[in-house]
């Protein structure tokens, strides 16, 4: 066994080896993997289909007429009724759903009632902004949470650990929209507090518009990553391979960073993958507070205006992203941890 490798945990693992007989031939392995992939795909399609039905029913059950929202408070009921019919909202629900679903299967998510543009065009415009905000928030949460958790685990139970935990966990305790307003109040003279500047505006103007919103968005995720990674590190440093490393006289910081942290990162990677979905959800509030024209704001505008095609299309895309990210996380996990590939875990 090589002390410098991150693999020793496998050698010392006490987990039972799977006893189910498996085909040893290459074609059997391929067939099994294909079957697993097909099952996953069918499950994914079912999840997406159910989500579309649920969202369709919800937006139509919620009171409020898109025609009234589009024409305003002072429009006459006659004008509202005329637009209602013009939008085809007087057709039976099943007919409306089937019409939308068949369009969606052909890549046509309809036209936004409020913004009068194809839903796909609007989503394309906004998705990149939200993806960038979420990516920056994720990066910030990792850059803060990983070193902080290593530090906290190193000084476990001491004052430094308690103070670090207190600050980081405040991120979960404070609602993100409230933190966002606090950040605006504190930094309104230093950083832009609203809007979005594209890359064309220059690197600093671009990033400066995203710093406060991404920090507000990162705070909640940061605390979760911190806690998972801290626990993982505390468990890892009690493992035999860490003791072995120490016995070889390797410096304490190297033991923490090269051995314990690397193994603690496995569950952290899973959590980070799941967080992508939560970041997309959290972006709704943050984009509203900071007036960022992303997917979150688009969906909120759509819900307020009862813009049925936009709500349905936006939620469909969000669900697909969430499901695909989780599929990728599943796949990545088996790549990171060889035991998953070998059927020993998961």
């Amino acid at each position, binding site marked *: 066994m090589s002390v410098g490798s991150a693999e020793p945990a496998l050698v010392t693992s006490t987990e039972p080896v799977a006893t189910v007989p498996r085909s040893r031939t290459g074609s059997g392995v391929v067939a099994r993997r294909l079957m697993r992939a097909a099952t996953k795909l069918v499950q994914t399609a079912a999840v997406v289909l159910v989500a579309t039905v649920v969202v369709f029913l919800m937006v139509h059950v*919620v*009171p*409020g*007429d*898109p025609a*009234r*929202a*589009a*024409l*305003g*408070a*002072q*429009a*006459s*009921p*006659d*004008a*509202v*009724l*005329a*637009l209602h019919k*013009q939008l085809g909202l007087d057709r039976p629900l099943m007919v409306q759903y089937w019409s939308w679903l068949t369009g969606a299967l052909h890549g046509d998510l309809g036209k936004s*009632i*409020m*913004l*009068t*543009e194809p839903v796909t065009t*609007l989503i394309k*415009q*906004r998705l990149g902004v939200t993806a960038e905000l979420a990516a920056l928030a994720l990066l910030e949460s990792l850059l803060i949470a990983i070193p902080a958790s290593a530090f906290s685990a190193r000084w476990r139970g001491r004052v430094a650990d308690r103070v670090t935990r207190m600050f980081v966990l405040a991120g979960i305790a404070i609602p993100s929209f409230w933190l966002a*307003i606090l950040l*605006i*109040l504190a930094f*309104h*003279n230093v950083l*832009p*507090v*609203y*809007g*979005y500047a594209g890359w064309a505006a220059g690197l600093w103007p671009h990033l400066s518009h995203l710093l406060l919103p991404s920090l507000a968005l990162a705070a909640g995720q940061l605390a979760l990553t911190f806690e998972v990674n801290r626990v993982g590190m505390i468990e890892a440093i009690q493992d035999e391979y860490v003791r072995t490393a120490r016995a070889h006289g390797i410096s304490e910081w190297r033991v923490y960073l090269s051995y314990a942290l690397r193994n603690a990162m496995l569950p952290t990677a899973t959590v980070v993958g799941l967080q992508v979905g939560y970041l997309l959800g959290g972006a709704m509030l943050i984009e*509203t*507070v*900071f*007036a960022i*024209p*992303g997917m979150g*704001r*688009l969906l*909120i*505008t759509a819900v*307020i*205006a*009862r813009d049925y095609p936009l709500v349905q299309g936006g939620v469909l895309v969000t669900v697909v992203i969430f499901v695909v990210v989780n599929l990728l996380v599943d796949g990545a996990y088996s790549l990171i941890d060889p035991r998953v590939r070998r059927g020993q875990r998961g």
Partner: protein
Amino acid sequence: MDDTDARLARLGLVAPTRRGFLAGAAGLGVLATLAACGAGGSTASTSTSGAIATGKPKRGGVLKAAIPEEPFPHAYDMAVVGSSTGTERVAYLAYNGLTNVNQNNEIVGELAESIETPAPTRYIFNLRKGVTFHDGTPFNAAAVKANFDRIQSPKTNSPRRISVIDQVKVLGPYQVEMTLTHPYAAFLGLLRRTKIPMQSPTAVEKYAASDSFKASVGTGGYQLTSYTKGNGVELKRFDSYWAQTNYFDGISIKIIPSQPTAIEALISGGMDFVRVGPDSVASLKNNSNVRVDAADDTFVDYLSFNQKVAPFDKLEVRQAFSEAIDRAGLVNAIYHGLAEEAHSPLAPGFAQFYASDATVVAQKYDATAAKASLAAGGYDTGSKITFNSFTDVPFAAEAQVIQQALSSIGVNTNLRTQDFTSFATLFYDQRTYTIGNSQWNGSVDPDEVLTNLYGPEDGTTSNSTNAVDPVMAQLITAGRSTTDVAKRAEIYHQASQRAAEQAYYAFLSFPKVLAGLSTKVKGYKSTIGGGWPIDVCWFG
């Protein structure tokens, strides 16, 4: 001759023209605009609109302003845009109307240099010459006819169609005649810039079907250049603007839904103009770079009683509910004093048509009388009624204050607060609620308010009470039939009295319109009718 005089001379407004009684008014309108350009802006915290003197207008700079919501569909092709105050405010910067509201809140000619009324149902508009749309299309009688043909056509299904117009005829290259189906004294107000802005017929023909924004070409001081959905709207100065009262190089408008964010942007200098709510005024008071403009308008908050739901068909019950509400307390609690107590539908912004407290005796707070009226109406205090409201500021809080007031006379309510779209569908379209609070705003003539609050229950008005009041209908008709201001004022005082006595609505407050401005913005004076007169402002 200074710049202002030169401009007036170019506009032919130094001496009144001899044609038509409104020609002078049109001139006075522009005069008032220019005069008021010397008003507004200081380090004072809260000011009455336009009350503060400043220097001469200066060119330059880009005004940054915030709006809270996305413009309505088809922005800014206004012929097909619904009744959105936010959308109309931005459009106000890019367009002109045949008429507009001047800074004295009077309807005056804008693109109509003078207006003649040879008969109560005939209006002849003599158009301003030398005016061009932003795309170079000349503004003339043909352009006016094209605009009205489009709006009045059933094919367009325009929410801005004016049912009283019978015919629009071109009399000459710069002369148009409109014939009405019946005399309608409020007619010129319906043609104001926010309601019927003149659009370039060339742009409409070319783009209306494919791109609403490209079809949005007016004759106003600022030209719409881009609209990024979800982000904002950009306008640049139109150098050939006929009135030459456009001093900024451009106006940049951002959509900022969160009011705290907009206010912080104003404080930090990132914004020059934002709308503020009464709750935010206190936080701006000590900032020397910001002032709050508070102006009387024609807004009225009310509690509506559905006549189709017992026992609100009984006058005594409606009066009891009205008498239970302490309007002074409500104005202080909800509007922090930035509103007037209401006792009738016509707000102080209507000037001579506003019936003062001394004129209208009904609809006053009197808890003892309220209990007596409730008993007289046979109201069952053991019952519980549903009270519908909506989440927008300050209506949910207003509803809570009303709920407590009703509780004090023994009325139990189940307060149901929804988002505005849900509320509006129930309140204005289905009209199946029991009681609910809302607001009417954006009017320039009492007829607009009274027609919508008391008009026929046939789907053409916003009469949420389902009430049919023949006396009020007669007063509305009488008010429309004469252009004599004194006579109309007398009629509308009677209408206010009738509205207060019958209590189909309990009128609550007349809120002021509030705006937060950087003190470097000069010349701002709020006007009634939903306009956004930042188009005549400048940086000091």
